[in-house]
């Protein structure tokens, strides 16, 4: 070890116990360590070393598996995050791109009235309608002023029938 080879024991002891005692201290340590060197400790069995190496290999494999599992779960989590973000992004984009919603309401008028592109026909129908409305107006005035001279009940019934007929015709288009 470099640290140990570079260290000057005598100088080190000098700092703590002074120059006089440092030499003796270094000698005590040298002799003590000489005893340790002359009594070698037993070596580990080769079987033990083989067992340790096998255990290390098993641990490394286990560690590798765990690392792979962790990596896989992290990747899955990140991918799921991306997919979720992409989904939200697409939804958001679609929402921005969409046309304003149309107000859909059921019309009480027949579609034919609105969808007709024939202006001439429409004008003729309008003219007929106007004529009939005028006729009804006249009839109503006559009734109001009693000009019919007939039975008022019949006149009202007749008017009602006419109105019903107009109504049916009109909504038929």
């Amino acid at each position, binding site marked *: *070890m*470099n*640290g*140990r080879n*570079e*260290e000057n*024991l005598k100088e*080190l*002891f000098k*700092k*703590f*116990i002074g120059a006089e005692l440092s030499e003796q*201290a270094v000698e*005590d*340590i040298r*002799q*003590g*360590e000489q*005893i*340790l060197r002359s*009594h*070698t*400790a*037993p*070596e*580990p*069995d080769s079987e*033990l*070393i083989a*067992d*340790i*190496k096998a*255990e*290390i*290999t098993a*641990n*490394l494999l286990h*560690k*590798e598996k765990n690392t792979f599992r962790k990596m896989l779960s992290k990747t899955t989590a990140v991918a799921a995050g991306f997919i979720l973000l992409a989904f939200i992004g697409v939804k958001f984009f679609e929402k921005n791109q969409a046309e304003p919603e149309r107000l859909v309401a059921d019309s009480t008028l027949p579609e034919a009235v609105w969808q007709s592109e024939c202006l001439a026909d429409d004008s003729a129908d309008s003219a007929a309608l106007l004529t009939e409305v005028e006729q009804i107006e006249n009839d109503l005035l006559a009734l109001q002023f009693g000009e019919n001279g007939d039975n008022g009940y019949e006149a009202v019934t007749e008017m009602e029938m006419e109105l019903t007929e107009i109504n049916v015709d009109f909504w038929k288009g």
Partner: protein
Amino acid sequence: MAKSNDLAQLISGCKSGNAESFSKVVDTYASRVYGYFYRLTGNRETSDDLLSELFVKLVEKIGSFRGGSFESWLFKIASNIFYDYLRDKQRRKKTLEVLKKQFESEVSDAKEYDSDRIDKLQVQLNRLDADTRELIMLRFYSQASFKEIAAIRSEPIGTTLSKLHRGLKKLREMMK
């Protein structure tokens, strides 16, 4: 001791999970660390267990090695393992004492040392207190400097010097 370049390559290999690199580290350091454990415990079986534990811990902790002396780092782990073992042994001893009181005739002393293989040094080492014994063995087997040993033991270098000096002097006297 591995040359610094070779050692750096070995450590790098270990960090990347290379079994071959770990195998070389085991070959390089097993003998020294085994000697350290054996001289501290005086028992081969216990030393076998502690050595296995050390290398298993090495696999777990190699990622946290941030340079400096690898031997010091390795022996710091070994030292922690030894003190953990010592604490566990003391706990067991206490339990054993309680059991002994309950079943005086049934429980015999646990065999702590390999009495058949033990040498004179081991006998005398066992007479030293555990802390001094650990310091002497740490210095001898790790081959670390006093500065490094003081750092491993988290104590001032003066304390380390003084403890080791007294311990070795006492051991020498006991061995006479």
